[in-house]
């Protein structure tokens, strides 16, 4: 095992990974799925089917709406019964297709073909067709990362198995249960990019995964397993590269600019399925946790299953613990839901059902200038100062302080003794500056 490494800044939120030793359970197919055309970063996909069309499992229902975009596939076989605006998990109604399950339909069969024998372009095309996006939560279409003219600059592919969000354990379980697919996915990506150096980066609170990969990759010259000292937000692309390779991505640049491509471990597994079996992304693993659910654990669930159905299929909520907050994603970066009839999308890594105690936050007070936020910020920003500029609606100075570099990891707000809504202020500033720059461009 290599010596564990880490990055500068960040912090140690309490490790509440109670579901780490719960094996992934495949849930039954839902009766109905809602598939949004916008489940990834970039342009929304374009629907190609209409109401009453029959679809088989894995059929494309929407094609990529641009280069930075990904197709959407039917996750169950059935009939399209609705298309139009449905509530998106982000709270804004957006275009979606509803499929009702045909209970008679047969499962689609997928045949194995060794992906490593294909040419890089073929592999990339298959990845693109499978609709795989960054499943760690960023949902950036994977094939875009693999399309570059500057392959000469690239030297490393990092598989992101840090999973630093407290409470989420899907990547951990994927690594334990599907290590071969993950390694295969990495090899496919390395082949596409013609890179000879692969790193699987795993935080050292997942020792069993590190040991498993060490064992699987013993003697491998190209791929190394890099343990990381557990720290949040190590799973962030920039922090991960800084931790593994001591390279810092300058402001406004991409991992590519320092010669690295980062892929989430679960994405790697689905790349393997997508290339070897031509199986599109129709399902994903979701961690269900929190005090309010009867059976917390890791579940394999079809995309488009509503949160209500999902919780119901796992056994439902406890009767005696009133639900206070539902979070889609992790406790640090996830977002609260108010409506359980929103579907699970490609980026959903967890559903947390919290009771009053778990959801409780202390009241805000004045900033004490303690500097905790500055020390915690992995991007070297000054959250307290930016917040003051935002309070005075001074977007220029907020911009000057590089608020656009903020990765919204939540370290500052987590550690702030005044419990200030720092991240929300950052988001607001980023939004306003973004809008301003759009306006300027239009001029």
């Amino acid at each position, binding site marked *: 095992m290599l010596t564990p490494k880490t990055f500068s800044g960040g912090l140690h939120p309490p490790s509440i990974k109670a579901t780490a030793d719960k094996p992934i359970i495949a849930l039954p197919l839902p009766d109905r799925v809602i598939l949004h055309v916008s489940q990834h970063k970039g342009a929304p996909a374009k629907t190609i089917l209409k109401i009453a069309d029959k679809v088989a499992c894995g059929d494309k229902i929407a094609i990529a709406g641009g280069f930075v975009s990904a197709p959407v596939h039917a996750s169950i076989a059935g009939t399209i019964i609705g298309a139009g605006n449905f509530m998106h998990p982000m709270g804004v109604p957006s275009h979606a297709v509803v499929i009702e399950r045909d209970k008679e339909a047969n499962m689609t069969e997928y045949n194995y073909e060794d992906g490593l024998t294909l040419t890089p372009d073929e592999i990339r095309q298959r990845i693109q067709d499978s609709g795989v996006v960054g499943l760690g939560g960023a949902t950036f279409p994977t094939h875009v990362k693999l399309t570059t003219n500057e392959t000469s600059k690239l030297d490393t592919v990092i598989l992101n198995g840090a999973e630093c969000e407290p409470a989420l354990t899907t990547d951990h379980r994927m690594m334990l249960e599907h290590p071969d697919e993950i390694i295969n996915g990495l090899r496919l990506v390395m082949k596409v990019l013609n890179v000879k150096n692969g790193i699987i980066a795993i935080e050292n609170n997942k020792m069993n995964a590190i040991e498993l990969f060490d064992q699987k990759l013993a003697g491998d010259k190209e791929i190394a397993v890099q343990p990381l000292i557990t720290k949040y937000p190590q799973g962030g692309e920039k922090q991960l590269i800084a931790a593994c390779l001591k390279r810092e991505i300058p402001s406004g640049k991409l991992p590519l600019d320092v010669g690295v491509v980062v892929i989430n471990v679960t994405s790697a597994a689905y790349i393997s399925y997508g290339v070897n079996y031509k199986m599109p992304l129709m399902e994903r693993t979701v961690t269900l946790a929190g005090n309010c659910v009867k059976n917390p654990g890791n579940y394999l669930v079809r995309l488009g299953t509503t949160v209500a159905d999902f919780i119901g299929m796992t056994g439902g909520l406890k009767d005696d613990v009133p639900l206070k907050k539902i979070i889609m994603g992790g406790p640090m970066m996830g977002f609260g839901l108010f409506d359980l009839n929103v579907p699970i999308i490609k980026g959903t890594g967890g559903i947390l059902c919290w009771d009053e105690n778990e959801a409780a936050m202390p009241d805000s007070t*004045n900033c004490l200038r303690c500097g905790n936020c500055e020390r915690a910020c992995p991007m070297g920003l000054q959250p307290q*100062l930016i917040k*003051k*500029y935002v*309070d*005075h609606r*001074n977007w220029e100075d907020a911009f000057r302080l590089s608020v656009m570099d903020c990765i919204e990891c939540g370290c500052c707000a987590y550690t702030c003794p005044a419990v200030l809504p720092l991240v929300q202020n950052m988001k607001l500033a980023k939004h306003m500056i973004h809008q301003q720059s759009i306006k300027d461009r239009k001029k």
Partner: protein
Amino acid sequence: MTESLIGIFLTAIFIENFVLNQILGLCPFIGVSGRTESAVGMGISVTFVMVMAGVATWAVQNLILVPYSLEYLQTVSFILIIAALVQFVEMVIKKLAPALYKALGVFLPLITTNCAVLGVALINVKRNYGLLESAINALGGGLGFLLALVIMSGIRERLAISEVPVVMRGAPIAFITAGLLATAFMGLSGLI
């Protein structure tokens, strides 16, 4: 001799700070302490003019006014000299060093009516300082002004983004802060 010059110099900067102790030059102190960059420019300009004015007024006082017993023209002649000096310096810098003018020149007109400049001339006369002492006192006074201005600008930049109560915002809090700053600098009294 050297020791007493150093004494005059340090006293003028820290102990008898023009702004915080002598209470001179408050208008620009409150007016131009909004941003550190302006404060530095203003401070340097004042220092420059003060030294020149210190020397020029000494010359007029001791070479013309005293020999011809015209001391009663002190005020009139000093202010005229300072005004002319400032204008002259402004024009010279504007032509010869546009970059410097951009940084400092804009502050020059403000200095005519800065009572710290006239003040230093009057104090020099009152204390019977020689030429060198006058210049050193003026230099120290100017640097002290610069120091107070820069400190104040740093504080005010922070206050500008703080939640200062509405009635206190701007001049009131600036004065109270100046008062507290003066209190803090009282600790240096008796030094040297």
